[in-house]
C-alpha cells in the first residue's frame, strides 16, 4: 500500500536558525497536508498542497508529485515552534490519507 516516510524523527534547532522536514512517498500522491500538534494534542493544519509551493510566515512547504516528496521549511525558528509535525498524503487512485510518523521539533534558546 501507500507509504509515507517522514524524516527526521527528531530535530533540535537553536532560535533563529532553520531547517527542513521531508516526506517521501512510495507512490504518486495527489495532495499533501502538513500539520502541527498543539499543546492539547490536536492537529492544526499548516498547509494543504496539490502541487507547487505555499508560504505562510516563517513556514514554507513544497510538493512534487512526480518526484514523490514534500518538504516543510522552517526559518528563524522560535521557541513556540517546538512541537510535533506530521505530513499526510492522499493516494492518487485511492484517495486514502496516509500519515508520516511525525517529527518532534525542539527549539532551544
Amino acid at each position, binding site marked *: 500500500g501507500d507509504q509515507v516516510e517522514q524524516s527526521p524523527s527528531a530535530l533540535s534547532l537553536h532560535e533563529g536558525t532553520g531547517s527542513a522536514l521531508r516526506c517521501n512517498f512510495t507512490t504518486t500522491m495527489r495532495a499533501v*497536508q502538513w*500539520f502541527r*500538534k498543539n*499543546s*492539547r*494534542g*490536536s*492537529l*492544526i*493544519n499548516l498547509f*494543504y498542497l496539490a502541487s507547487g509551493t505555499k508560504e505562510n510566515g516563517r513556514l514554507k512547504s513544497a510538493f512534487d508529485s512526480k518526484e514523490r516528496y514534500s518538504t516543510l521549511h522552517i526559518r528563524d525558528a522560535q521557541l513556540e515552534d517546538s*512541537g*510535533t509535525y*506530521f505530513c*499526510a498524503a492522499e493516494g492518487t487512485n485511492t*484517495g*486514502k*490519507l496516509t*500519515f508520516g*510518523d*511525525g517529527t*518532534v521539533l525542539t527549539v532551544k534558546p
Partner: protein
Amino acid sequence: GPKVLQIPSHQIIDMGQMVTLNCDPVSNHLYFYWYKQILGQQMEFLVNFYNGKVMEKSKLFKDQFSVERPDGSYFTLKIQPTALEDSAVYFCASSSGGGAETLYFGSGTRLTVL
C-alpha cells in the same frame, strides 16, 4: 507498530438516520481524536477526548455529533441526525499523552449520506 482500527471502512446511510463510527484505539492510549476530510479538501480537526470528557472541539463538531468511550471499549463518533454535508472520511487517532507524543491514525471510515 501500534494500530488504530476503524470499523467499518465504508458506510452508506440515508439522510436523517443515525450513524455510529467505531474506533479501536491503541490499547494503552488515553487521548482520542476525530478528524473529518471532505473529498478534495484538507483534513480538519473535530474533537479530542480524554478521561471521559471532550477536551476541545472545533466549529465542525455540530450539536448533532457526540463522542464517547464506554468502559474502555470502542471510541465512537455518533451523528444524529445525519445531513448530506456529513459525507466525508472520518479519521480516528489516539496517543499516549496530550503533548509531544505521536498520534496514531486509523485508515478512516468513508461515510456517504444519501
